[in-house]
């Protein structure tokens, strides 16, 4: 069975290749069969492999399969080899399974689109690249997948390329993530310089032996890798591309910009956790970036009016939680939140997509309203996803994953009261903006005519994801409440468990109660302001400070303007200064001199024989004179 590991990423690639080569001639049913089928088969294989992995754990907890050697230059011999351990199993499960549901959904969502084939070709290419990323056993192959998903992200954000601003958003996403990728590439070069290999397991085992904690190269490399992770995962300071990435079709936002690709940074940090443990400063930076990002993005999400942009900021914010968890060393908590987040955020995006397409591509929440009765299935699934995002206590999966992060941010050995407080305030804001979204969209008066109710293929993935958003939380329960540790013990061979400050354990229930209270309070505030007393909302909005804050948060804390002033404008200014390329001026001078000489010499060609004779005589005299000189 484990010999089939290579088939999992190969199937989506084959699907993409088939669609690219013959796609134009195939009918839509065949296209969707290829597009959905390839990912579906991968998902089935992943499930089978996962069952085998769980029932009969392999030696060392790893399936490794080398397909072929990529190249061999001066002792550097990366191979196309796949490495399946508990961490990558979680990721490929989410990628193939959620990916399959989103593909299924897309057949209905994109049914009317003229780029149907192109869409599925890109999506399959994306799933294949993402699987390569998480299955790679060396960092070079990981980087190949990393750039592959970046390319697909670019292609799919600009999928409707006839609108110029979509192309702009695509370029923005590509260029900003490239900033992080460059840092990451330099980090890989340095790793190769120190270890002579990019094989992840070798690096991990050698680094712990060769380097003491806090050694400088580890610090630099960890920071460079963090740069890559920050760019890909839309964290501060490279987060500005993600809200604009919503220009792509909604299934793309669900798959790439919520569930999978943006969490590649989380995967990278978890995969290279040994390096980060050797560089405590870098690891603490991860936590701080996560904490700050989750707050900034949360406040921005409060003010957005576009349904998808709310979800985009919320994605940034939730990935901030994952970074926070990674930064305090709660590795499995971060990965657990990744999985739960993939379920409920994909669900929210898909439900939002169902609304958007039913309302004829209307994305402004304030033009929706009153959809509760008209689309009950979408309403209930959206509500479950929103409850999970807002971490409503006990019943939702989001509660268990987020509570674990908050608890470990406080009580873990690298925990810190400030990180905990940031997470807590973030949870409060999350609850407010989530239910603001729910109340504005589904309650109140209907403002837009419903075009057609969503079909079965749209509702089915929603229901599956809604179930997962609820029950998936029960595989990891806090130890004072059920004490189920299936997930963290499953991951423990790969990611070490975080020791907890024992003196705080007895009061754990209190902190859980506080977290629960904060999220409930957030829901209540949203209920009060947006549903019960809209006048309150109006009066808050119309006060001067609130309006200024609203503008500021709406524009994402002015980061776009800041970067425009700081980088784009100076660059454009320098480009205009150097419009005529000062290096060219040297070559222009050369041609100018040649042309001048030519013009001067051309005068001597007069056609008068005696002048030519004179020239010969003068030349001969000059040569004779020179040869006679001593």
């Amino acid at each position, binding site marked *: 069975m484990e010999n089939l590991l290579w088939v999992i990423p190969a199937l989506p690639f084959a699907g993409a290749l088939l669609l690219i080569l013959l796609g134009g001639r195939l009918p839509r049913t065949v296209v969707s069969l290829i597009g959905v089928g390839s990912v579906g088969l991968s998902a089935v294989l992943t499930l089978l492999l996962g069952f085998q992995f769980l029932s009969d754990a392999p030696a060392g907890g790893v399936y490794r399969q080398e397909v072929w050697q990529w190249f061999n230059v001066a002792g550097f011999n990366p191979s196309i080899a796949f490495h399946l351990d508990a961490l990558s199993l979680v990721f490929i499960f989410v990628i193939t399974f959620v990916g399959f549901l989103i593909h299924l959904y897309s057949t209905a969502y994109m049914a009317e689109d003229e780029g149907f084939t192109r869409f599925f070709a890109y999506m399959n290419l994306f799933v294949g690249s993402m699987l390569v990323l998480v299955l790679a056993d060396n960092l070079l192959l990981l980087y190949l997948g990393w750039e592959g998903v970046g390319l697909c992200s670019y292609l799919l954000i600009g999928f409707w390329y006839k609108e110029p601003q979509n192309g702009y958003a695509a370029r923005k996403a590509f260029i900003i993530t490239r900033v992080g990728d460059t840092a990451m590439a330099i980090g890989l070069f340095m790793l190769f310089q120190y270890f002579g290999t990019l094989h992840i397991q070798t690096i991990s085992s050698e680094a712990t032996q060769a380097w003491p904690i806090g050694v400088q190269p580890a610090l630099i490399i960890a920071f460079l890798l963090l740069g890559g992770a920050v760019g890909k995962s839309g964290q501060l300071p490279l987060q500005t591309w993600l809200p604009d990435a919503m220009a792509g079709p909604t299934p793309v936002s669900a798959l790439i910009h919520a569930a999978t690709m943006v969490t590649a940074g989380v995967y990278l940090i978890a995969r290279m956790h040994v390096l980060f443990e050797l560089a405590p400063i870098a690891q603490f930076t991860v936590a701080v970036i996560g904490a700050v990002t989750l707050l900034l993005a949360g406040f921005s999400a409060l003010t957005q009016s576009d349904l998808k942009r709310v979800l985009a900021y919320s994605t940034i914010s939730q990935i901030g939680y994952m970074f926070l968890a990674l930064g305090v060393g709660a590795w499995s908590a971060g990965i657990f939140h990744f999985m739960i987040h993939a379920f409920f955020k994909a669900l929210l995006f898909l439900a939002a997509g169902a609304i958007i397409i039913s309302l004829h591509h209307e994305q402004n929440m304030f033009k929706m309203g009153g959809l509760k009765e008209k689309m009950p299935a979408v309403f209930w699934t959206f509500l479950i996803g929103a409850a999970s995002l807002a971490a409503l206590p006990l019943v939702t999966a989001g509660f268990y994953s987020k509570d674990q992060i908050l608890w470990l941010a406080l009580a873990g050995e690298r925990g810190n009261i400030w990180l905990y407080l940031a997470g807590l305030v973030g949870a409060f804001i999350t609850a407010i903006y989530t239910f603001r979204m729910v109340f504005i969209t589904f309650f109140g008066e209907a403002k837009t005519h419903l075009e057609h109710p969503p079909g079965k293929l749209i509702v089915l993935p929603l229901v599956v994801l809604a179930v997962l958003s609820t029950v998936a939380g029960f595989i990891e329960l806090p130890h004072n409440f059920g004490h189920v540790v299936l997930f963290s013990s499953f991951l423990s061979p790969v990611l070490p468990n975080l020791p907890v400050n024992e003196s705080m354990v007895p009061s754990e229930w209190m902190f859980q109660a506080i977290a629960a209270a904060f999220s409930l309070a957030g829901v209540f505030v949203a209920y009060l302001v947006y549903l019960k007393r809209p006048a309150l909302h109006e009066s808050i909005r119309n006060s001067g400070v609130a309006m200024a804050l609203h503008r500021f948060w709406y524009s994402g804390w002015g980061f776009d303007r800041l970067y425009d002033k700081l980088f784009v404008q100076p660059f454009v200014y320098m480009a205009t200064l150097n419009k005529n390329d000062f290096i060219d001026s040297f070559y222009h001078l050369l041609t100018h001199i040649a042309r001048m000489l030519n013009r001067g010499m*051309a005068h001597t*060609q*007069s*056609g*008068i*024989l*005696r002048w030519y*004779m*004179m020239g010969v*005589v003068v030349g001969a005299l000059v040569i004779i004179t020179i040869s006679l000189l001593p």
Partner: protein
Amino acid sequence: MTTLPMEYGLLLAGILFVIGLVSLLIRRNIIFMLISVEIMLNAAGLAFIVAGARWAQADGQVMFIFIVTMAAAEVSVGLALILQLYHNLKTLDSDAANLMYG
């Protein structure tokens, strides 16, 4: 028999060469230009003879025979060209033959 010093012969050859060169540069009539070239050739030949006599070597005279032969060939080609020029342009002015100028 007294022998003339070599310098006299070379001086004569030099004067002849300069006369030929100057007339080549200032004459416009192409026949005179041809004659000037002949004068310069004979000046060179004279220099060879003088040098051959000075060192009592036959090489100088051999070279002179070569020059005479070459001059004959040159004149035949040159006169043919002059005939063609006159045939085409109805003039012997060498400055008129600047049709390929530029």
